[in-house]
């Protein structure tokens, strides 16, 4: 090994150790565990793909798969819309723009569990804020967390609230590098704000939009904390994500089956990550 290589290795070594010990080995461990019968009250042994065969016949698992795929699709779309509005606002010349940017960051900065608790409070059937406000428009009271679609909507709202700031910031970074001359020129040509958005902002921003899309999708695939607090996976398992479902089996003492569920989620995430790598031009991203 040459000098450079050795030097570099020395600097990278701590990171590699940590990552191998606490991420890579556990992931491999989970992979192997999914091939074992690992139940607290049964003898442990290798059982090949039995756990996966069991998965394929498990309706609840497929229900979770569906949820895990539909949830990101809807919430990420809404995050893009809201995020765009916020990013454009934050990019204007405003008084106290710094403060406004700080405020916009708040939902992202506070712990997910706490934002879930706040939304749980808002959705309460009897004295929640949502039903109180709906009363003025003559609707409700709505049993938000009671129906599967209602619970789904609640989760989407809570997730959108929490992660839109992140999307907004990424989009903001994209907006900042669009040369202002383009807008000035368009203004001279008499284009209104909406036209300018459609013909300048949107096309120039599309690479950044894709980046934000990929990050958020992969993140939304593994949603756990807001579901754990808000619905616990219910009602009737309608909002059980794969993370929640896998976790449940860990707690039942069945680590083998829980691992098999995790492996499936891992595969979904990997597919998205591969798409990300394929789109190699985004390889210079942070986060």
């Amino acid at each position, binding site marked *: 090994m040459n000098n*450079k290589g050795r*030097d*570099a290795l020395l*600097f*990278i070594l*701590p990171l590699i150790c*940590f990552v191998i010990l*606490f*991420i890579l*080995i*556990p*992931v491999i*461990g989970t992979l192997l*565990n999914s091939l074992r019968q690992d139940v607290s009250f049964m003898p442990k042994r290798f059982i090949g793909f039995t756990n996966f065969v069991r998965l394929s016949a498990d309706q609840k698992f497929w229900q979770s798969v569906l949820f895990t795929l539909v949830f990101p699709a809807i919430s990420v779309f809404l995050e893009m819309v809201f995020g765009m509005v916020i990013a454009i*606002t934050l990019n204007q010349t*405003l008084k106290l723009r710094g403060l406004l*940017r*700080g*405020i*916009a*960051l*708040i*939902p*992202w*900065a*506070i*712990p*997910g*569990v*706490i*934002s*879930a*608790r*706040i*939304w749980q*409070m*808002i959705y309460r059937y009897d*004295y929640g804020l949502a039903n*109180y406000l709906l009363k003025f428009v003559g609707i409700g009271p709505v049993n938000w967390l009671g129906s599967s679609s209602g619970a789904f909507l609640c989760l989407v709202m809570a997730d959108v*609230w929490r992660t839109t700031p*992140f999307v907004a*910031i990424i989009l903001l970074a994209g907006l*900042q590098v669009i040369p202002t001359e383009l807008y000035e020129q368009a203004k001279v040509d008499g284009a209104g704000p909406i036209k300018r958005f459609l013909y300048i902002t949107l096309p120039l921003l599309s690479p950044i939009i894709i980046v934000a899309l990929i990050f958020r999708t992969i993140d939304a695939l*593994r949603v*756990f904390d807001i579901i*754990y607090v808000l619905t*616990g996976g219910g009602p009737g398992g309608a909002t059980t994500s*794969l*993370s929640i479902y*896998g976790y449940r089996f*860990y707690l039942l003492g069945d680590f083998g089956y829980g691992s098999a569920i995790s*492996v499936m*989620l*891992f595969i979904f*995430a990997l597919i998205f*990550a591969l798409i990300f790598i394929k789109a190699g031009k985004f*390889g210079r*991203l*942070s*986060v």
Partner: protein
Amino acid sequence: MVEREEAVLKKSGVIFVLFFSLIPVFWMLIISLSQSPDFLVNGEMVLTLKNYFDIIARHNLHFLDFLKNSIIVAGISSLFSTLIAALAGYAVSRIRFRGRMVFMILVLTLSMFPQICIIGYLYKFMSRLGWINSYPGLILPYIAWSLPLGLWIMLSYFSQIPRELDEAAMVDGANRFQILIRVILPVALPGFLSTILLLFIFSFNEFLFALMLTTDFHSQTVPVGIALFQGLHGELPWGYIMSASTISCLPVIIIALLFQRQIIQGLTRGAVK
């Protein structure tokens, strides 16, 4: 005409941002300050600080324990993680070794693994070490888990520092480690600090690892404490939960407001080039 339209749009945008970001937070604050959470239907709202006094004074609610654990765990892990990320980031930005890009992409890919794929085995691993319900049992995984983010941010800061600085020091006979400590880090100090802040928020908010790796108030963190506060859907002591939440949000909200520039830079450095 266009000007007015624009001004209106701008204003409504600002109002939207304020409402969107603040209404739930205000709601939390209001509930935490009211005597009973159902004032909307009861019609009478009594302001009180009782909830705050209670969660601080009543030791068996363990709120201060949760807060202490969170601050220690997030503080230590963000510091260590930033240091380790700085070392690696320096190597990637300054030493042209083979496989740099592959290395970066691999690290980035790791950060996209779902936590649930890690926690099952990590739990067993920590069990064997006897580190369930201990600070190291949380700190070590948090360091690893926040490293990819830290690495990318540090890298983007380092790559903005002119190489001439290194080369000058190299001529003076300093080795690479000395260069990093004496030359690069002081210049990259703002970047270093904002990375610590970001990773602090990152670890402070983590839930699933903490949920499975801790068992009681000796090491449970704020998110776990608040999630398990008397049950899942329970008729919860909302006043307590919301006052505990408010206090816990305070540090991260202050960080967000004071260091918004650094956080935004940290999150987006290198995203646009």
